[in-house]
C-alpha cells in the first residue's frame, strides 16, 4: 500500500516541501530509501525501526520503498524520521484515519520512540506557512520556537506514540502563541554602559557609531577595556523589533545555536570569532553552505578582537558582506544567500608588543614591525571603517563613582531619536542610515559651509591626514550633526569627526 506524508526541508534559510512517499510491497523484507538522502537522512532507517518497535508499533516485515520527492534535490538532516514513520504506519494500515494528510510532519526519532529537537524549525514553518500549510506536528522541544508564528496550528509531541494517538483521534491542544514583547522583558544583556567608568572618548564614539551605523576600530594596549566597550554596544542599539528578531532567529535556528527554552532571539547578537577563524566559518560555507559568523551577527555586532591577527584572506572576505549587507555562499551543490547586516567593531593593539605610544610602558617594536603590523589591514577594508578611536588603559581612580555614568537606556533613547531623523531624511533614497550614504547622497546631504571647508583643509595640512579619509569624516560629521539636532554640518561637527581618525593620526606622523 502507498502512503504520502508532507514534510519540509531547508535550503539555506528557505524551506521547501518534501513529500515522503512510502510504499510497502510483498516480497523479501527490505528497505530502500531513494531521493538523494544525505547520510544522516539515510540512517533514519534504523532509528525509525527501533522507535516503532519501542513504541509498541509493528515494523512491517515486507519490502519497503521510501521516496523523498522531489528526487533530484539533496536532502539534509534528521527531520524526516517522523514523516517516514508516519508513512510506514499509514502504509501498513496501523493508522487508518486519513487525518495525517492535513499535517506537515517534522521531527527526529530516538530509538526509544521519543521525538527529538531539529534545527531550523522557524524558517521551515514560515516557508510552509507561505506555501499555505497551517497545521504541523513537531517535537515538543521545538514548541517554543514555533509558538511565535501567528496563524498556524502547531502540535508539539513528546513521543511517536503520542503522534499515533493524536492521529487516531485523541485530542491534543495546539501550542499557544507566545508574546515577543514579554519574552524580551525577561532576557537582558547582562552588561550596561554605566558599568564602564571613564573612557568618555570611546563611549562618545560608540554612541556616534551606533547612531549612524558606522563601523568602529578601537586601538589600544591589551587590557584597556576594548572588549568590555564592544560588549556594551548591543545594549545601546535600538531594540530589535519582531521582524528583526525573526530574521536573527531563522539564522540561529538553522545553525543550531538557538536556545530551545526561549525559542526566539530577543537580544542583538554579539559574535566574537577567534582570530584563528577560517574563511568558511567567518562568511559561511562547508559542504552544507551553513551560515558563517557574519550572518550569525546579523542585526547585531561582529567583534573582531586583535584584528591584524586574523588571516588576510579572512579579513578580505569581509568586504562583500560589509558592502552588500548580505553574503552569497556558493558551493558545488547549492548557492545560498544569507543576510549579514552587522555592525563591525574591531580592536587592535597599536603594535606587536602593544605598547607603542604608551606613557608608562616601553615599546620594543621597530618602525618596520609597526608598519607591517598596521598594514595587515588593507586600505579597502579600512575604507569601510568610519571611526577609529584610541582607547587607553590609564585608570583614573579619582573619577570613579564621582558621577554615575549614563545607563544604556539613556543613551539608547538618544540614539533612537537620531535614527528617526535619518529615516526621515533618507525615506526617498533607499537607505536607512548615514553609514550607507554613497557619493550622490554625500553631495546632497553633506555640503559644508565655508568655515567647514576651511577647517577640513587646515586639518589636512596640519595633521597630515590621508585624503581617502574625507568621505568618512563627512559621514561621521553628518551623524554628529544629527545628534546635535542640526540641519547642516557645521565646522564643530567636522572638528569632532576628525578626532575619530585615530589610525591616520597615530601613524601618519
Amino acid at each position, binding site marked *: 500500500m502507498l502512503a504520502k506524508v508532507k514534510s519540509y526541508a531547508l535550503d539555506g534559510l528557505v524551506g521547501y516541501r518534501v513529500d515522503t512517499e512510502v510504499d510497502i510491497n510483498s516480497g523479501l523484507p527490505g528497505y530502500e530509501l531513494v531521493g538523494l538522502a544525505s547520510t544522516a537522512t539515510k540512517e533514519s532507517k534504523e532509528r525509525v525501526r527501533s522507535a516503532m518497535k519501542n513504541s509498541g508499533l509493528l515494523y512491517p516485515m515486507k519490502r519497503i520503498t521510501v521516496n523523498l520527492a522531489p528526487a533530484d534535490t539533496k536532502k539534509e538532516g534528521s527531520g524526516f524520521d517522523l514523516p517516514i514513520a508516519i508513512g510506514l504506519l499509514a502504509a501498513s494500515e496501523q493508522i487508518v484515519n486519513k487525518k495525517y494528510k492535513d499535517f506537515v510532519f517534522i521531527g527526529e526519532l530516538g530509538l526509544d520512540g521519543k521525538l527529538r529537537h531539529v534545527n531550523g524549525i522557524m524558517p521551515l514553518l514560515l516557508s510552509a506557512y507561505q506555501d499555505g500549510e497551517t497545521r504541523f506536528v513537531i517535537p515538543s522541544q521545538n514548541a517554543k520556537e514555533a509558538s511565535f508564528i501567528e496563524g498556524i496550528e502547531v502540535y508539539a509531541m513528546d513521543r511517536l506514540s503520542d503522534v499515533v494517538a493524536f492521529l487516531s483521534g485523541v485530542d491534543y491542544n495546539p501550542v499557544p502563541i507566545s508574546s515577543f514583547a514579554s519574552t524580551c522583558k525577561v532576557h537582558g544583556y547582562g552588561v550596561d554602559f554605566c558599568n564602564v567608568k571613564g573612557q568618555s*572618548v570611546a563611549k562618545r564614539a560608540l554612541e556616534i557609531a551606533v547612531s549612524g551605523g558606522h563601523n568602529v576600530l578601537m586601538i589600544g594596549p591589551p587590557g584597556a577595556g576594548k572588549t568590555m566597550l564592544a560588549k556594551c554596544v548591543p545594549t545601546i542599539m535600538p531594540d530589535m523589533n519582531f521582524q528583526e528578531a525573526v530574521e536573527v532567529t531563522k539564522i540561529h535556528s538553522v545553525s543550531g545555536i538557538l536556545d530551545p527554552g526561549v525559542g526566539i532571539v530577543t537580544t542583538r547578537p554579539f559574535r566574537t570569532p577567534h582570530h584563528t577563524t577560517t574563511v568558511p566559518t567567518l562568511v559561511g560555507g562547508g559542504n552544507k553552505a551553513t551560515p558563517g559568523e557574519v550572518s550569525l551577527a546579523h542585526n547585531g555586532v561582529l567583534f573582531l578582537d586583535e584584528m591584524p591577527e586574523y588571516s588576510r584572506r579572512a579579513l578580505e572576505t569581509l568586504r562583500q558582506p560589509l558592502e552588500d549587507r548580505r553574503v552569497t555562499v556558493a558551493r558545488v551543490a547549492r548557492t545560498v544567500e544569507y543576510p549579514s547586516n552587522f555592525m563591525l567593531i574591531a580592536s587592535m593593539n597599536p603594535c606587536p608588543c602593544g605598547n607603542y605610544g604608551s606613557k608608562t610602558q616601553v615599546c620594543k617594536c621597530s618602525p*618596520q614591525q609597526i608598519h607591517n603590523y598596521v598594514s595587515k589591514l588593507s586600505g579597502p577594508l579600512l575604507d569601510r571603517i568610519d571611526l577609529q578611536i584610541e582607547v587607553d588603559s590609564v585608570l583614573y581612580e579619582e573619577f570613579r563613582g564621582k558621577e554615575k555614568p549614563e545607563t544604556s537606556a539613556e543613551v539608547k533613547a538618544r540614539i533612537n531619536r537620531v535614527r528617526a531623523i535619518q529615516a526621515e531624511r533618507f525615506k526617498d533614497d533607499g537607505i536607512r542610515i548615514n553609514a550607507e550614504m554613497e557619493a550622490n547622497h554625500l553631495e546632497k546631504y553633506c555640503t559644508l559651509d565655508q568655515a567647514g571647508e576651511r577647517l577640513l583643509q587646515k586639518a589636512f595640512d596640519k595633521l597630515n591626514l590621508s585624503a581617502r579619509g574625507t568621505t568618512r569624516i563627512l559621514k561621521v560629521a553628518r551623524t554628529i550633526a544629527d545628534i546635535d539636532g542640526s540641519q547642516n554640518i557645521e565646522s564643530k561637527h567636522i572638528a*569632532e569627526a576628525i578626532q575619530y581618525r585615530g589610525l591616520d593620526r597615530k601613524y601618519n606622523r
Partner: protein
Amino acid sequence: MNTTKENKIVLALALVEELSIKKKRDLLSALPNPIDWTKESSFHVVESILGDKHANEFLTKLSSVDDSIEEMDKRQVGFVTFYDETYPEILRETYDFPLVLFTKGNTSLLNSDCIAVVGTRTPTRYGQKVCDSFTRDFARAGLTVVSGFARGVDSIARKACVMTDSPTIAVFACGLDVCYPAEHKGLLESILSSGGLLVSEYPLGTKPLQYHFPERNRIISGLSRGVFLPEATLKSGSLITARLAVEQGKELFIVPGNINSPESEGTNKLLQEMPHALVIDSEDVLSRLNVKAVSVDAEVVELNISETLVVDALHDKELHFEELLEITALSAGELSTLLMNLEINGIIEHTGGNFYCLA
C-alpha cells in the same frame, strides 16, 4: 659634462668596492695626477698602495667606466669629483674630503649655505619640538638643511623641510638606490619632489655597513657651515659628527637638555666641554652664521572661556582627556571639538593615547 679623462679615472677608483678612504687619499698624495694612475710606468705605486686585489678591480672598473656612467644616468644618478667646479668648495677645504660624490636631485644645493641637523634616533618630545622648530627657522632663513637619512632627529628635520617646502640635502651611508631605513621611502620621494638632493660617497648598490656611518658624518659636517645638535645620547653617532665639525673648523650649536634625560646626556656633556656652543633659540644660530632670520607672523587666535581653561591647565604638563573633561565640565563631544580646533590652530598637540599637551 664632467666626463674628462681625469674624472673617469677618479670615478673608477670610487667605484672600487670596500676601498678605504685612507688608501684613496694615500694614492692621491703619492700620484697627484690621476692620469699617472693608469700609466704602466707608475702602476706599481698604485698596486703597492691599494693592494693587488683592489688595483686589479680598479682597472676593471676603469675599462667599464662608460657603462657605469650610462647605468647611473638611467637611474638619474650623477656624480661630482673634486676636479669639478661644482664640487662644493666648503667640503674641499676639509682634510679628508671625498674624491667623488654621487648625487641625485638638485645639485645646485651643493654650493648653497648649509647647516647640518643631527642627533639621536629616539628623540624625546622636547627634542622633537626643538628640532622641528629650529629646522623650520633655518629653512625659512634660506639655509639648506643637511642631515643623514636616519630615524629620529634626521627624519624630523627632513619632515620640517618638506612641510615648509624647502630643499634639503640627505647624505646616505649606502648607495643612492638603497633606501635605508626602508620605511623612509615616502620621505625620500618627498625630498626629491620638494627640490632636495641625495648625496652619497658610495657607488650604487652599496649596503649601509656600520663603518659607513661615521664616514658619512664627515660629509654632513663638511658640507655645512655649522652643525646643530638638538639631542644626543652619550653613545650617539652625532657626537662623532660634532667632533668632526670642530676639527673641520665648523660652528657647533647645541641646545641644553634635561639633566635627567638619557637622550640629552651626550649634548649636555659636550656643552660642558664647549660652553660656547650653547644656543637657546634659532636666532642665536642664525646670527652666528650671519644669516638674517625670517620671522613668520603667528596667526592670532582668540580663545573662548573653555579653550582658555584647557590651555591654562596644560601649561606645565600633559593631561588626559578625562582630566580635561573634569576641568572644563563639557560633554565628551564638545571637548573633542574644542581640542581638535586647538590642535588645528597649532596651540595644543595630541601626544598619543588620549593625552594632550601644549604645542
